[in-house]
């Protein structure tokens, strides 16, 4: 068979040359025309990335207001750097719900990929992300960038969102969203004259009305109010909080009881859990935690954050202990002006009464495997995020910044209904985070299972449940080398 040479094949080589010439001419023209603009850009600030276009990926938390705020505000950053530094940045977002986010981040970072350049991480994961070297250590970055050397509102902020291991000066994250536990109450139910009368008649005391009233309130007094508003036949209950087995919901809600009543969960210095977590005092706290189910709607044992929002916004409960971060979801348009946000009640009586609640919130962490360009953009992003204007804008949209300057503004309390409580709970000693250990996930899973098993009635002895949890956690930390002592012999007999 003969092979014919196609007629146009000779000219195939001419065409590219022609198009090259065309391209070259175009380039030359655009440079000539664009020169004045480029000069102006360069005049703004000398920046290594000027004139380039960079793509960044942010991994955030699905369905979480502050995370989506961070995402929604990124076009502002794009505008900012375009004007100031002369480069274009475009963002793509990925997200996963809390319960799966660590999984998503870890499976990606384990491959040393640049799939996610900036990650909004939950505060407990700092250890798990830092230890394998997946995120960038920020001490040097902060030293070189004055904009990041902020005065944070309290030491709690630094301890929770920035430091790992606990007690050292190593910094791995910068606070994205501060978060504390708050009590959301239906002010309109409190203001109702009929309710006021009935309550006064029944208990001989007035219903609390203001922030200060609730600040002074103890759990015993609050219990009366919860009981008062628990009316199942009217489809209304007095209270709701998280009891769910998923993620950290039950733990965060229970730790409010544990810490406020004087208990501890571990000794960070020695890694000791057994003997500290499973005390009789904590067992009593666990029982109290379960007892409050009687003021909660049915199905409360499955309540996480989302369910808490659902029951409150649908008018099923008088009050909910809920994160300040979801304030904008809790206070829907229909509920505007009807909700008062106050600190959770104190545990105990008299002067010894105190409240120590769980700390929430998320830090920004930077992927350690970013190439130079993306790293530069990430640092610029942080610098921009902590500018006073950005922080205020963030607050105005419903977010919670953490720096002293923004929080000390005169108008801060009025920006969002929960801001006053947020500042209040952020002060030293009022909120606490639990362990940042890389093994937190395993320890948390056991704990969640235990607490869930107790509140649903599968296990009936709170002390036994705590023994089981403490032993298992002691084993994990001992295997890891963080805890110096192994679980005691009594541990062999524990079970759920």
């Amino acid at each position, binding site marked *: 068979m003969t092979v014919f040479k196609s007629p146009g094949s000779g000219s195939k080589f001419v065409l590219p040359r022609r198009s090259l010439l065309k391209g070259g001419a175009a380039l030359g023209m655009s440079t000539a025309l664009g020169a004045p603009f480029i000069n102006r850009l360069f005049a703004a600030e000398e920046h290594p990335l000027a004139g380039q276009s960079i793509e960044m990926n942010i991994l955030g938390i*699905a*369905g*979480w207001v502050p995370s989506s705020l961070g995402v929604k505000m990124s076009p502002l950053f794009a505008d900012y750097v375009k004007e100031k530094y002369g480069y274009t940045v475009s963002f793509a977002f990925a997200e*996963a*719900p809390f319960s799966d986010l660590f999984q998503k981040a870890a499976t990606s970072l384990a*491959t040393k*990929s640049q799939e996610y350049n900036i990650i909004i991480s939950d505060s407990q994961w700092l250890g798990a992300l830092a230890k394998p070297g997946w995120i960038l250590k920020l001490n040097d970055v902060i030293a070189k960038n004055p904009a990041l050397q902020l005065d944070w509102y309290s030491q709690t902020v630094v301890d929770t969102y920035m430091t790992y291991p606990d007690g050292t000066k190593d910094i791995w994250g910068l606070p994205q969203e501060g978060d504390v536990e708050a009590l959301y109450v239906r002010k309109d139910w409190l203001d109702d004259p009929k309710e006021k009368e009935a309550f006064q008649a029944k208990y001989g005391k007035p219903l609390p009305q203001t922030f200060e009233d609730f600040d002074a309130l103890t759990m015993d007094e609050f219990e009366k109010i919860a009981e008062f508003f628990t009316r199942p036949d009217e489809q209304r209950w007095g209270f709701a909080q998280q009891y769910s087995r998923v993620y950290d919901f039950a733990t965060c809600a229970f730790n409010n009881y544990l810490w406020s009543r004087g208990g501890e969960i571990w000794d960070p210095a020695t890694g000791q859990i057994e003997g500290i977590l499973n005390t009789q005092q904590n067992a009593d706290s666990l029982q109290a935690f379960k007892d409050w189910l009687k003021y909660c709607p049915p199905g409360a044992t499955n309540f996480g*954050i*989302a369910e808490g929002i*659902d029951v409150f916004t649908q008018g099923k409960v008088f009050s909910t202990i809920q994160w300040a971060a979801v304030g904008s979801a809790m206070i829907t348009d229909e509920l505007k002006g009807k909700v008062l946000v106050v600190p959770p009640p104190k545990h105990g009586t008299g002067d010894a009464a105190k409240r120590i609640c769980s700390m929430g919130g998320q830090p920004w962490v930077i992927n350690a495997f970013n190439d130079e360009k993306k790293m530069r953009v990430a640092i610029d992003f942080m610098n921009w995020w902590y500018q006073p204007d950005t922080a205020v804008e963030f607050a105005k949209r419903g977010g919670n910044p953490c720096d002293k300057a923004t929080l000390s503004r005169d108008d801060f309390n009025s920006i969002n209904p929960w801001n006053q409580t947020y500042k209040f709970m952020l002060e030293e000693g009022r909120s606490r985070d639990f362990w940042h250990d890389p093994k937190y996930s395993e320890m948390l899973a056991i704990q969640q299972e235990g607490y869930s098993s107790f509140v649903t009635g599968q296990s009936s002895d709170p002390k036994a449940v705590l023994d089981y949890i403490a032993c298992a956690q002691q084993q994990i930390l001992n295997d890891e080398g963080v805890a110096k002592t192994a679980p005691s012999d009594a541990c062999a007999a524990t079970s759920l």
Partner: protein
Amino acid sequence: MARLRAGLYYAGLWATSLVFFAPIAWIVLASFKTRSDILAIPPKLIFTPTLQNYVDLFQRQSLFLQIGNSILLSLGAVIIAVFVSFLAAFCFSRFKPKGTDFLMFLLLSIRMLPGPAVILPVFLMYAAFGWKDSHLWLMLFYAMFSIPFSVWILKGFLDGVSTRFDETGIVNGGSWFHVIFKVVLPQVRPGLIAAFIFNLIFVWNEFLFNFIIGGVTTQNIPYALAVGTYADGGVNWTFISAMTSVYIILPITFIYLFQKYLLVGMTFGTVRGEV
């Protein structure tokens, strides 16, 4: 009397079908409700329908990427799987190499492990070779999962196609290629279609593998459903119901159109006509 009995009989069957379909109908119904209507107590059967959920759905970022990925990954994986399986099944059926039974069993063993157990070493492997978040490698992995079932079905059908056809084809001067694809293949159509549809639905609904070894570029709809469950703190019922309703259209359509083939296909070759 017989008519009455028949009528009652048919009514009973329809009632059963409706009972099984009821939860799905509930989801589709919810996709036309506002969020407050969905959460209303007692649950509302009569309400003013709204199309807002669908409008919102189609304005979601990445939606078309996800739908595209779902279609691409499903079709690609299953086409590859059925093709490869057909060749293998032909070989097992016609030439019965030594160890056929052992190989068939081994193929089945792939499907025995729970998802996380299967994906664990694959994840490490993909991580080591940089194959994570790649359409090709994800598709190939899905294909692997679809092969065992396809081989079993196709072998069953091929066993039912007499070897006379092969011989006649060869005798008449055709190559093996001709025999396999032009003579034998059309005769096992029900098996091909059944294998195709079952595996398509499996990959269509697959979440875990995409979550672990897929990534930003290969996200599919079940992944979107999982991450979109919570929106700004509350459960995003409107999204889930609308998305599920849209997503289920393809599988249900296939089941309706190809029902005959499914029924015949699941006989694994013992029936060639109508069921």
